């Protein structure tokens, strides 16, 4: 089974007539996802993707007409925050934002607003989610994963595909794979996804894929040691990354030099999490 999305999810695609939106909406439908509507202001009334999907001028009308309960956003960065607000104000409880390059202050306002409304955002700058055999929302290639009992949560996009693919080559499958995005301010942090996997009866094991920067992996490590009964295997990217050029003192004061790969691996090891040296080592760590 799954977290977040399944075969019953009713998906509205914001930006469905754009280059990326139309390509990936097509891919989602081909995978079997229930794409019920698209939104592009000014193109309401059209039918796209071989006449299968109605387009609306607004998310509100799309939700009223089709009962959509998941939104996926492909609009350009400068319009993305507004698209998220629109989805939230239209009563969509779960929003995936694929768009990369959204200004961080926009996201801080978005996050504060959504927290008040109790709406879940996944992303931005994320690949979305895939529940193999049931549905995909976003851009994860469907053919690289098979159904199984492993929950996958990742801050990265393509690195996630790498891991799913490595699992598949070893005959291992995923319950759900969710990419939470690599931006400094995102909607769903690791610990939220971990708690969903912990509660999902069909997930037996979890893979966490992190990278340098911030302290989400450290928080995840603390959460795992306190609350997780299911085994977790991790990979952290960026062990060879050069330290960023830093200016001013505020960054150093607020982060105190944390956020390196070594810090994160240490924190995860301390929480009993085995950390792979490279993505293709993950399957063997899951077996042992």
């Amino acid at each position: 089974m799954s977290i977040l999305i399944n075969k019953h999810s009713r998906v509205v695609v914001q930006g469905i007539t754009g280059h990326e939106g139309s390509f990936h909406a097509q891919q989602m439908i081909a995978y079997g996802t229930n794409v019920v509507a698209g939104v592009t202001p000014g193109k309401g009334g059209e039918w796209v993707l071989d006449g299968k999907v109605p387009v609306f001028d607004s998310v509100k009308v799309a939700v009223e007409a089709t009962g959509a309960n998941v939104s996926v956003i492909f609009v350009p960065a400068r319009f993305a925050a507004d698209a998220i607000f629109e989805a939230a104000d239209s009563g969509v409880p779960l929003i995936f934002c694929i768009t990369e390059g959204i200004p961080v202050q926009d996201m801080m306002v978005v996050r504060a607003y959504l927290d008040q409304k109790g709406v879940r955002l996944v992303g931005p700058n994320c690949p979305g989610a895939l529940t193999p055999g049931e549905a995909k929302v976003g851009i994860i290639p469907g053919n690289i994963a098979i159904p199984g009992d492993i929950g996958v949560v990742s801050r990265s996009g393509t690195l996630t595909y790498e891991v799913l693919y490595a699992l598949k080559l070893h005959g291992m499958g995923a319950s759900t794979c969710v990419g939470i995005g690599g931006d400094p301010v995102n909607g769903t942090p690791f610990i939220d996804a971990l708690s969903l996997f912990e509660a999902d009866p069909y997930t037996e094991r979890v893979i966490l894929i992190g990278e340098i920067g911030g302290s989400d992996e450290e928080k995840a490590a603390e959460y795992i040691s306190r609350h997780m009964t299911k085994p977790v295997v991790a990979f952290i990217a960026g062990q060879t990354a050069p330290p960023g050029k830093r200016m001013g003192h505020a960054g150093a004061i607020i982060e105190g030099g944390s956020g390196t790969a070594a810090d994160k691996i240490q924190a995860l090891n301390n929480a009993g999490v085995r950390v792979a040296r490279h993505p293709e080592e993950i399957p063997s760590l899951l077996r042992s």
Partner: protein
Amino acid sequence: MNLHEYQAKQIFSQYGIPIPRGRVAANPAEAKQIAEELGGKVVVKSQVLVGGRGKAGGIRLAKSSQEAEELATLILGMEIKGLPVRKVLVDEAVSIEKEIYLGITNDRSSRKPVLMASAEGGVDIEEVAARTPEKIIKILIDPLLGLREYQSRDVAVSIDLPKPFWRSFISLAESLWRVYRETDATLVEINPLVITKDQRLLALDGKMSIDDNALFRHTDLAEKRDLDIEAPAEIEARKYGLSYIKLDGEIGCMVNGAGLAMATMDIIKLYGGSPANFLDIGGGAGADKVAAALRIILSDANVKAVLINIFGGITRCDEVARGILAAIGEVKPSVPMVVRLVGTNAEEGRRLLADAQMITAETLVEAAQKSVQVAQGGA
């Protein structure tokens, strides 16, 4: 993107934050002229985008306009941490009674802006933060509400600011918040904010970093970018929307996605090689972007092999293959290239590259091993 001190202070001043009188000079004669206007006693400050300017001798006090000219000659001939000093800021010298730290930045952990202040401002602020964190006051700002007056007042009280300064401090903090908000800054910092002997608050130094993702709505700020701190290849990369950082190794990397790019660098190291660069072509890169990426990688003379690792999602492998072919036709690379294409339209991509005499790999481990091998001269 980072701004110079003089640029940051100009912006501060536009928002009503008091700064010392002064101007920027590009040559000693100008510096002398400004010093004369300011009455002779000035501070000559190098304008380079690195920390530790003072300790490197790039900030000097002049007692006369003559001395200001001499110091400007000296400082304008300096390199600080490898960066040439092209401009100096000539500011009036002020008598300082107390140095305060005041800054606003993004707190990733709480996903909110945070205002920080300390009664112990000055060059050793990071040490203060590390040794006596209780001396740094941190106030989280609700992005929906903005900085509230009571919060600034609490800060004034917490840093033991004398009561006569409260009103001007609150207004200054409000101005700094507006600078942060309206310029899409990721950092605005005044260190030190001083109380002068004649009892004024004055922003003696200023630092600002602007969110690169927000520059589309700040074209005036985007023009202020100082290209000295970036390698030419990095500037070229940004033109094409590529994220490139040059490193010292010998295996050039072209990858889609920052996480996978870092993982690819890590695995090259794990198998005994060293990455020549970080390069993320981003999501949905087309053929022209890929061609530019390959040109940039190959412009590094240290590169002995190239590893192209593309896991297609929003990026389509056939587009990448077309870009590779276009770039090869143009630059005729003499180093071996290892290519791994998986995911969206990978088969078509591989078909396009079939005749291009490239080394192919199925897995990440295989790709890393092969590129290390060919970089070290093996077949």
